[in-house]
């Protein structure tokens, strides 16, 4: 129970620190918000960001467990879509279509 409270306190503190950092430049890296990360995730995964933008996103991901989970589930969404199985056609429809087209072919 106590450990859980301490964890939640640390998490709140971390969120405040991150909100403070958004928009500032720290050690030469432009810090971006979670919203900005989500806006460019597609370009990040497609390798279409500049080097500086990529560094900003990578730095944010290193600090933010929520955005790491967001990125992981965004990737998972794409993976599920890409592997969605085909639906088989019914034999009845397939045979009917073949007969209809063969009939049309001969007229």
């Amino acid at each position: 129970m106590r450990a859980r409270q301490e964890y939640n306190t640390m998490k709140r503190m971390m969120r405040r620190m991150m909100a403070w950092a958004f928009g500032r430049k720290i050690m030469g890296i432009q810090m971006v918000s979670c919203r900005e990360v989500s806006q460019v995730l597609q370009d990040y995964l497609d390798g279409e960001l500049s080097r500086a933008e990529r560094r900003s996103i990578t730095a944010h991901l290193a600090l933010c467990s929520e955005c790491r989970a967001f990125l992981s589930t965004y990737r998972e969404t794409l993976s599920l879509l890409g592997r969605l199985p085909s639906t088989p056609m019914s034999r009845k429809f397939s045979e009917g279509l073949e007969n209809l087209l063969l009939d049309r072919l001969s007229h």
Partner: protein
Amino acid sequence: MILHVSWTISGDGKPNPHLEATLSEAEAALVGRLVEREESALLEVLTDHQSRIFNLALRITGSVEDAEEVTQDTFLRMLDKVQQFEGRASLGTWLYRVGTNQALMKRRSTGRRQEQSWDDPMAAFTEDGLHATPIRKWRGSVLDIQKEETARIVRQAVDDLPEDYRNVIVLADLEGRSRQEIAEILEISVPAVKSRLHRARLALRTKLAAEFEEAKE
């Protein structure tokens, strides 16, 4: 909808000489046999393409009945127009584009679905730009798409998307078409395809998260 494959009357039923310059020899011969009304050529085309056209139509229309109608109309159109096939794209590509356009028109004309309201994916953040609600990982056990329940949830989530989102998700992520090709099919710019696709993916991620997230600690 504009079909980006043009057609000209070729006349004598023989393959247009242009076909041989742009299509493979085997495909040009296949089109020639279709023009000659050979049954074996029709059966070959059906074997190669009917399942793909049916699945494309099913993903766009969300209805087996509508997908069957679109598949039938696409192949009937092929038989009606094959003499005019100029071959600037392969027969498979032409069938695919006709099928896509027919399915999009079918979905619009039926209008049988009440589209659900979807929250703006960009609204899920605080004023500071932080996630407004906790983001959790997804349960590994449900992520096997071969499981019927998982596939059903994903199909339903795609089908529930607003039309603009659904069309780009189907063409890009289910059918694997390029951004350029989608732009041509939907008659929008490539940047519009990219922007719409990202928002659609974010919306779908949020929808799937409600089903797949790990339980609260």
